[in-house]
């Protein structure tokens, strides 16, 4: 084996005389002097100047000659380009390793991407393209023109500010495949999105933090995984809650009584004795049913009294039914089967005391003979039947709904963040269709 030779060749700029390091002799075709900005023809032994400086020199974030190990491969930064599609600009670092050839590090100002030229043409599969028999990529944008805005360092082609290619991008999460075309060449390249901090660590620059900037079209939503997870967990929690609700919503009839109350008659008191609530505290539902009401109402005052402690749980119900007709036609309203709930009644023996008073509703008080307005009581009132049922158990729909809302807060938040990200991501691609939409807006 021969002794190690230097891979770097020292040159002097033909224009300014500054010392330059040629790092890829034989591959490099042109070199932009980092001191004065002229472009030199490195295939010419005389190092002819082929272009004068056109832009003020800028220093790349990662200096030329920086070595770094990225995903197990040692690379040296040999060239730096800034390109623009007319709206957005980005930076491209040309990486070189004599045994590995060239690679690219593309910096969109937010994330770094790591890429290579493709050795095989993508397969066309309908609207998608496929590389390496992997997951298809969707057309994202283009063809759109891309122009070189600034360049420094060495390149394996004749680099020039103002150089234009037509670019078409295809994306899938984490990967962009781009086709670049000019009159004599069509090249395909693949860029993989690097993790936050990967490129910064490799090349020794300030690590970036995830922020709210515009993601690139290939950037997978950081919320996607959490979205799946949160919805699965949320769904399990919601189903569990509903199962518990359904299981505990079975009701048990504790008591029932049929009674009659006279319209505009004296109030009646009905007592159901000895209602047993065994075991544990539970919800008690008292429901009344009075289907013969016609423009009448019944006030129902309930008192559930613990026989031992005389503690009383009071509630109120109103059975009513009204109908009539007006300029809008006939109408009717009112609930003849009011349900009243007591949320948590301790176990014990109870009496339910119900005080009922039934009234007629009249639109014009002067036509009423008996009634609340007059304070008079009909001594022979029309009797209205009322059934009162006492049931144990049942879930409170309000509690279930509140529980569901609480369960959905996190998945909802994640969905919102994911959609917001996707909107920003899609907003960053320059599809002609999108532009049309924007104009329509």
């Amino acid at each position, binding site marked *: *084996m*021969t*002794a*190690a*030779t*230097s*891979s770097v*060749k020292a040159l002097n700029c033909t224009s300014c005389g500054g010392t330059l390091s040629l*790092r*890829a*002799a*034989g*591959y490099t*075709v042109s070199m932009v002097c980092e001191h004065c900005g002229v472009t030199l023809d490195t*295939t010419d*032994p005389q190092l002819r100047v082929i272009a004068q400086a056109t832009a003020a020199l800028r220093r790349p974030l990662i200096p030329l000659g920086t*070595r770094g190990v990225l995903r197990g491969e*040692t690379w040296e930064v040999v060239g730096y380009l800034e390109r623009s599609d007319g709206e957005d600009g980005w930076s491209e670092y040309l990486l*070189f*390793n*004599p*045994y*590995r*050839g*060239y690679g690219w590090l593309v910096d969109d100002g937010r994330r770094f991407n790591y890429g290579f*030229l493709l*050795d*095989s*043409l*993508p*397969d066309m599969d309908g609207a998608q393209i496929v590389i390496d028999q992997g997951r298809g990529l969707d057309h994202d944008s283009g063809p759109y023109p891309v122009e070189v805005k600034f360049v420094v360092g060495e390149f*394996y*082609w*004749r680099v020039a500010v103002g150089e234009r290619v037509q670019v078409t991008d295809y994306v899938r999460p984490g990967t962009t495949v781009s086709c670049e075309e000019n*009159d*004599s*060449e*069509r*090249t395909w390249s693949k860029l993989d999105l690097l993790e936050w901090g990967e490129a910064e660590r490799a090349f020794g620059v300030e690590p970036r933090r995830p922020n709210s900037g515009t993601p690139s079209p290939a950037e997978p939503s950081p919320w996607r995984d959490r979205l799946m997870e949160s919805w699965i967990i949320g769904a399990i929690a919601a189903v569990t809650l509903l199962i518990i609700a359904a299981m505990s919503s079975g009701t048990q009839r504790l008591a029932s009584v049929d009674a009659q109350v006279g319209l505009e008659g004296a109030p009646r008191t009905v007592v159901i004795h000895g209602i047993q609530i065994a075991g544990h505290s539970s919800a008690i539902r008292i429901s009344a049913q009075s289907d013969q009401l016609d423009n009448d109402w019944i006030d129902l005052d309930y008192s559930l009294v613990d026989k031992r402690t005389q503690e009383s749980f009071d509630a109120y119900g109103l059975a009513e039914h009204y109908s009539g007709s007006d300029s809008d036609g006939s109408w009717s309203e009112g609930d003849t089967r009011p349900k009243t709930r007591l949320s948590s009644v301790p176990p014990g023996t109870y009496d339910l005391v119900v005080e009922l008073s039934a009234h007629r509703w009249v639109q014009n008080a002067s036509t009423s003979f008996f009634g609340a307005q007059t304070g008079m009581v009909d001594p022979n009132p029309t009797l209205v039947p009322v059934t009162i049922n006492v049931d144990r158990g049942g879930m409170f729909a309000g509690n279930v709904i509140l529980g569901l809302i609480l369960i959905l807060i996190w998945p909802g938040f994640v969905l919102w963040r994911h959609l917001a990200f996707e909107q920003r991501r899609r907003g960053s691609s320059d599809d002609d269709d999108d532009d049309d939409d924007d104009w329509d807006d």
Partner: protein
Amino acid sequence: MFMANCPNCGAAISFRSVDLPVRVCDYCHSSITRTGDALVSMGKVAEVPEDVSPLQIGVRGSDGGHSFELIGRVRWRWTDGGWNEWLALFDNGATGWIGEAMGRYMLLREVPATGSAVERGLRNGAQIIVGTEATIDGVQYRVTDVKEATCAGSEGELPFNTPPGFSMPSVDLMAADGHCASIQMDGGEVKLYAGRYVTLADMKANGLRAFEGWPMPRFAA
């Protein structure tokens, strides 16, 4: 291996292949052609300019179950760059080319002409358009690159002479599955080379050049 002396400078020269007619003298860079036992100097050829290619004469590797050794090289230049073509001599006596451009390697073998439109166009001096399709050996290719190549230097053993200023049209083609091909005009004759993109690791290349500060890849160490 066949040893002789350069008819120009007298230095010892070796022929690893018995079939190749041309040998460039390592010392005086004369192109020496062999007809039978007669060696004739055809004049000096350009020395290959210094580069950072990891390949060199004597690098060994293997492909398709056959080992090879690099025995020759032509450096080509076109208006916007250049590339190397390394001649590989396989253990079965066959030869192949490793095209080295932009840090990538194409391992190609000559294949019989297929009569494709690209070949006809090249023979007739027509302009070949990027994107033109061609089927070679049952593989569907598309033209990716068309250029006029000029020889910028050569070394070792070669199947043809490379006088100063020697130039030819060259067309590169690519297929979807990593296959690639090259069609060249050589002395009025259209030659087809087909193969695929490979890496140094794929070829298990060893005997590579060492560069200061660059770790030798694991497969070659």
